[in-house]
């Protein structure tokens, strides 16, 4: 901060003239002169600070007021109800100098009165600053308030309505008035939306629509819903790129369970390339103790596929929680939406391993895949590694029937993998860090000679595929020579920046047997005790050593030592987030200090097992407040 100067600055209204030294010219350049810099600075300020900033001077007022109002959050204040009619006759002006704005958007007299008597300052402020509002989140507002908003917020782009019940008429009026400007509409947890799609046809500029956790009338259940409601809306909103309907509850109790009483959601108007579609099965009507799994509503497959034919240019698709989707329709997906690069199929109860494999074969350009919470197989992962050579993100959290060998296939073959999340998978062990080959040599899949020791850490030629399904009863002599003498490097070692592992358990017997078998064939000496510890620490360390770019890491295991992991990382000081799920021994304050100060000083988020770690937690909180994050 500069020292105070004795010179009184020139009082030139509306300009910033800091007097710095006697020798300097009195006008100095400041970043506040440039609008783009104003925006940058304002973007880092929270609301109270912006409010303070507007009171500093006239110039600052004009700079910062737009930012203050740009994103507005309005809350309904209970005292405002039913005040409007009483003050009809007299229209007091709340503050003497500011008169009602008669130019531009015109409020009705009733609205004027309502506004004047309102205690909601933000709402009142709309009279002058309404046009500055670009994004509005309105919680529990009434029809009156909505009316005022629709008149005053002439540049409204994003509207989010939380709670509250809105009639078709109000929504129609709002959307008609603001038809050119509104681009995004979100309804969250609204109580009763009767005909929610009809008013939307007025919004010719609509790009995004979201209906989340709301109760709707039963028009959405009609089999003609799509022709009568949704398709007209799509026609009226040519720019629409995304619709999300999730957790939509049908009010009408007479819906048959299991019928298609859903709102699924999907999106993508015809215009522009690609779009985003998300289909999530919501809970079905009315039950109080709704269990998402048991009462999952379903969209019939045929309907899903029909909807998708309207969006052939789709590049991202999420069909999660679907109980109806089968292998068969997935196999036809490639003809309907051939350009998919991001696919999410989590919680897909009916899709089998073969189904997933077929999908991967038909979409070789997949970049991002989320197939969490499914029952897979190692063969699925191998197919993925084989077919989708551009894969960058993979999420297989909570999948079943996956072993170390499947994981290995991904790590050894996916050259561009940047993010790999395999949390909560049971049965994985430190062996996934190794390189276990059990391919039948007659399939000829392991091609090329394995890299020799010296070439191990240099960039190797395209790695041969490593497949581990179909274990042969014994490896022939000929194939032994093709076994990698040392573990081949992970194909993704240069790109992987996010790696979320599950708790590592003890290796299962089958995989362990294969490992030992391989070791024996390679002539590695095994100590006489076949149950010797696997030198897992070395394995883990040497792999982590090769990861150039890792920034986010989740790791844990009952035999895992924190220092082993961090010592192994090539550049631990670049770690930004670290999650430790389980350790061999509980962390001490010394561990924490080493972690936070020495090993990973750039850490921004840290998760550690909380249980039994009170003193460590407190120490970390004191030393680096905000570092410890909590799982949601």
């Amino acid at each position, binding site marked *: *901060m*500069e020292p105070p*100067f004795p010179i009184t*600055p*020139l*009082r*030139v*209204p*509306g300009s*910033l*003239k*800091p*007097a*710095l030294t006697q020798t*300097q010219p009195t006008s*100095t*350049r*400041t*970043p506040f002169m*440039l609008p*783009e*810099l104003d925006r*940058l*600075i304002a*973007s*880092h*300020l*929270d*609301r*109270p*600070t*912006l*409010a*303070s*900033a*507007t*009171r*500093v*001077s*006239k110039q*600052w*007022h004009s700079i910062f007021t737009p930012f*203050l109002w740009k994103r507005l959050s309005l809350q309904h204040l209970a005292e405002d109800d039913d005040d409007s009619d009483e003050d009809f006759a007299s229209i007091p002006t709340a*503050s003497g*100098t*500011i008169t009602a704005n008669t130019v531009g958007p015109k409020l009705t007299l009733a609205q004027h009165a309502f506004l004047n008597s309102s205690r*909601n*300052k*933000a709402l*009142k*402020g709309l009279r*002058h600053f309404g046009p500055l509002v670009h994004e509005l989140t309105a919680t529990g507002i009434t029809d009156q308030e909505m009316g005022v908003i629709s008149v005053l917020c002439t540049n409204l782009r994003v509207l989010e309505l939380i709670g509250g019940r809105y009639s078709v008429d109000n929504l129609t009026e709002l959307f008609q008035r603001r038809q050119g400007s509104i681009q995004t509409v979100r309804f969250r947890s609204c109580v009763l939306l009767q005909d929610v799609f009809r008013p939307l046809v007025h919004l010719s500029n609509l790009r995004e629509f979201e209906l989340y956790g709301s109760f709707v009338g039963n028009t959405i259940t009609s089999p003609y819903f799509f022709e009568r409601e949704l398709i007209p809306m799509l026609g009226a909103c040519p720019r629409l790129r995304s619709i999300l309907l999730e957790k939509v509850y049908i009010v009408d109790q007479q819906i048959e369970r299991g019928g298609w009483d859903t709102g699924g959601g999907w999106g993508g108007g015809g215009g522009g390339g690609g779009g985003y579609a998300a289909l999530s099965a919501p809970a079905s009507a009315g039950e109080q103790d709704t269990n998402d799994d048991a009462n999952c509503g379903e969209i019939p497959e045929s309907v899903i596929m029909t909807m998708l034919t309207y969006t052939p240019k789709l590049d991202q698709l999420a069909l999660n929680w679907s109980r109806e989707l089968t292998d068969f329709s997935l196999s036809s997906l490639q003809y309907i939406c051939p350009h998919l690069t991001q696919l999410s199929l989590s919680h897909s109860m009916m899709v089998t391993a073969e189904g997933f494999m077929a999908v991967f074969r038909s979409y070789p350009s997949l970049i991002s895949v989320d197939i969490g919470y499914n029952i897979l197989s190692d063969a699925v992962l191998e197919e993925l590694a084989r077919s989708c050579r551009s894969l960058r993100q993979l999420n297989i959290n909570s999948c079943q029937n996956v072993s170390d060998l499947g994981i290995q296939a991904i790590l050894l073959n996916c050259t561009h993998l940047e993010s790999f999340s395999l949390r909560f998978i049971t049965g994985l062990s430190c062996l996934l860090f190794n390189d276990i080959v059990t391919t039948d040599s007659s399939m000829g899949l392991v091609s090329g000679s394995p890299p020799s020791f010296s070439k191990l850490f240099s960039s190797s030629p395209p790695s041969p595929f490593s497949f581990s399904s179909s274990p042969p009863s014994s490896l022939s002599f000929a194939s032994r020579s093709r076994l990698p003498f040392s573990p081949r490097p992970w194909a993704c070692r240069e790109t992987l920046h996010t790696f979320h592992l599950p708790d590592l358990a003890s290796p299962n017997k089958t995989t362990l047997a294969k490992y030992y078998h391989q070791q024996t064939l390679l002539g590695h000496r095994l100590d006489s005790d076949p149950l010797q510890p696997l030198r897992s620490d070395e394995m883990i360390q040497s792999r982590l050593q090769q990861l150039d770019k890792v920034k986010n890491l989740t790791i844990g295991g009952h035999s895992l030592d924190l220092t082993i992991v961090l010592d192994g990382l090539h550049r631990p000081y670049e770690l930004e987030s670290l999650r430790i799920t389980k350790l061999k021994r509980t962390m001490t304050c010394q561990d924490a200090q080493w972690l936070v100060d020495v090993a990973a000083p750039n850490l*921004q988020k840290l998760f550690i097992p909380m249980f039994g770690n009170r003193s460590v937690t407190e120490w970390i909180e004191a030393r680096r407040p*905000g570092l410890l994050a909590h799982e949601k």
Partner: protein
Amino acid sequence: MPVILVSSDNQDFKVDKEVAERSILIKNMLEDVGESDSPIPLPNVTAAVLTKVIEYCEHHRNDPVQVPEETDDPRKRSNDIEEWDMKFMQVDQEMLFEIILAANYLDIKPLLDVGCKTVANIIKGKTPEEIRKAFNIVNDFTPEEEAQIKKENEWAEDR
């Protein structure tokens, strides 16, 4: 491969091409000019400021090039200024402003970000009077005007 930059007060600065190209403006100029060795004039930047800018670029020469992110809600990120950057920014206010303006002119986004965050941190949490003091700004509101604005924006200050 060194590049010569010339400040507004005619001082020459020899820097590595890699360092100079942290500035997108210079990078584009070099691409247009091609293999020529002629010095690049920077009429909007004085020597003192250019020294600081070059110091920043030198220190960050190996940083990965930032992908332009959608900066719609970066409020959360205001806290994270690196140690070195924080020390680097401990200059008097005039220099701070000059660095920001230079970073804007030269199109060095990370430096611009850090500079603006630093200014934001100066403003944060202060009352209007404190802000005026910090930036030596004249209060040109009449007391009535000021009271009115305060009333208008009261709702914002409660959050």
